[in-house]
């Protein structure tokens, strides 16, 4: 009997000690601080706080601003990897929320909008964290405006990433010609999906339950 049980125990131990599957979530929120969009930051704070309530222990979250050159660690406003223990994770959430509140109060508008640079930074951050699920939120009107000399025509590695555009507001020119707005969104969708990512747009901020939903 013992001879029969031993292989079963051995197999169980091998299964138990195998490579752990990552089940945590990594979220990276890009915050557009350019021009008139900086007036939307109250909504962004609300979304960030909601995202915090949906994240749990071992999840990672970072908030970065989109400015003239967004491919930089300096643009990360706040970042956190929640502790394994729920009580510590709760304390971290509160601290994070305070950091974001302080940031939104002291923000300065940026002249250019480097969304691609921000996405590149998000990919780098989330890949480093090795989370099971990787979500990039872009809180922007999705109108990229690069400073002369900045090269962003580079392929993105978005395989396994979800890219969610939030609160994509219409510009004055979009009102004149709505095709610009639709083309803009379609353009980003094409870029994300061609890079292996999954594209979503959420404009109705009253239904945030879809934010981290599948």
């Amino acid at each position, binding site marked *: 009997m013992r001879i029969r049980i031993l292989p079963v125990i051995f197999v169980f131990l091998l299964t138990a000690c195998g490579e*752990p599957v990552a089940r945590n979530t990594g979220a990276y929120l890009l915050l557009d601080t350019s021009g008139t969009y900086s007036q939307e930051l109250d909504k962004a704070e*609300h979304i960030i706080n909601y995202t*915090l*309530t949906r994240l749990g222990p071992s999840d990672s979250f970072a908030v970065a601003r989109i400015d003239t050159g967004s491919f930089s660690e300096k643009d990360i406003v706040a970042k956190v990897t929640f502790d*394994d*223990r*729920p*009580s510590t994770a*709760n304390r971290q959430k509160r601290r994070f929320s305070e950091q974001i509140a302080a940031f939104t109060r002291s923000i300065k508008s940026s002249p250019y909008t480097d969304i691609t640079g921000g996405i590149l930074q998000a990919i780098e951050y989330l890949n480093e964290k090795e989370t099971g699920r990787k979500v990039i939120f872009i809180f922007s009107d999705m109108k990229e405006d690069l400073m002369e000399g900045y090269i962003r025509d580079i392929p993105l590695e978005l395989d396994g990433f979800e890219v969610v555009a939030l609160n994509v507001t219409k510009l004055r020119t979009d009102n004149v010609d709505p095709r610009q707005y639709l083309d803009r969104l379609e353009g980003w969708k094409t870029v994300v999906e061609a890079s292996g990512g999954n594209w979503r747009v959420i404009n109705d901020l009253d239904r945030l339950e879809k934010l981290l939903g599948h």
Partner: protein
Amino acid sequence: MSFDQFLSITPSPVLSGLIWVVIIIALLYLARSMVHAAIHSAGGVLHNAMRIGSRSISRAEARLKERNKEVLLAAGREAKERIIEREFERVGDSVDKDLSKYPALRRRLNEAIARIDEDHQNAIDVPPSPPGWTKAVEVVAKIDAPSDYMIGNILADIHKSLVKAHNQAIEEYRKASASRHKILSGMMPQWIKIQQTLSAVTKNIDSLLKRSRAIDRHMKEYEDIVKGTDRAVQTLSSSSLVQFFVSALVLVVALGGATVNFSLIARPMAEMVGGTNFIGGFRTADIAALVIILVEITMGLFLMESMRITRLFPVIGALPDKMRVRMIWVTFTILFLLACVEAGLAYMREILLQDELATSAILRGDTTLMVAGDFQWITTAAQMGMGFVLPFALVFVAIPLETFVHSMRTVIGVVGIGLLGIIALLMRVLGNVFRYGANFLQKLYDLLIIVPLWIEHMVVRKRNGSASQFKEVSP
């Protein structure tokens, strides 16, 4: 060869078809005896196979029934032995208790009787003795001088003295009677004591008699079980089924309790072992909580075994008494510690919940929920109480578990017997279906070749008719 080719052997397809039909019927007619034999043998083989199978299953059913009966009787015998053993223990305890008090009881009775006897002696009524000089009065009265003044005076004096003496005697008699009554009334407590003592004795004897009657009844049932009578088997079987369902119901209730217990400790367990670690697809915190509950149930089993309430592990029951008592204390201590841990975890759960609610409220910008309610302590205390009590409640799972395990053997046997009976019946029915199916197929075959059969019949009839005519003419 296609179907059209078959119909083109003559210019007319109908004629071709008819020719083919005739050929086929002729072939079928020629092969009739062989086909009949084949159908008959196939039907016979299948019928026999089913019959043999059915018989074999019936034998297995009988063996299982016998085995089940043995199991049932053995279980019943064991249970009855336990009951009788327990009854004898009670009788022994009762006798020990009462007989040990018997000398004291006897002494008390003797003392009471002696006291009553003494009081009785003291209370004997002594009539007052008549005055000795009354005879002198009679003599003076007989003096023949009725008018003598002296005699009158003497008699008056005597009368006066007599009245005085009489009053004194009556007074003394009253005093003596009062003291006797006092003694008699003093006897009452002794009488009551004797009555109470005798009532207690009667009660004990009645209890013993009742127990002896119960033992007689159990012994009668035990004898029936030992003899293996049908009545005993039937009683044990129905009792076993009832026990099975009742214990299953109680186990379901216990499972509910264990689930509540689990939900109480799983959440705070994440604080101790981490909320995101997984073992084989399950959260480590959940596994840890489950392990705690299972350890509690195991300790409960050991406790019940050590107390000899259940008998699932004979090794524990056979341990020396000293060791058993130690085991009782060890298991109880572990259970107590686990109950304390659970109460602590339940308290922690409430704190974590409040913390989480407060964080969510802050993040939502909602300040109304941040103020804790005045009655918060009630839910906290209730959770702690449940965390402490449930481990002890789970201890009693051992009793229905033992009943469930024991009765399950019988129930599985009964279900097995039923299934085997149904299979045997189905095989028997199927065997008959094959048998009569073969006959039916033979008839169906004959229906296809009814024309040549009819011709054959006519020919045979004609030939038989000629033969009989020939027979009639030839003599």
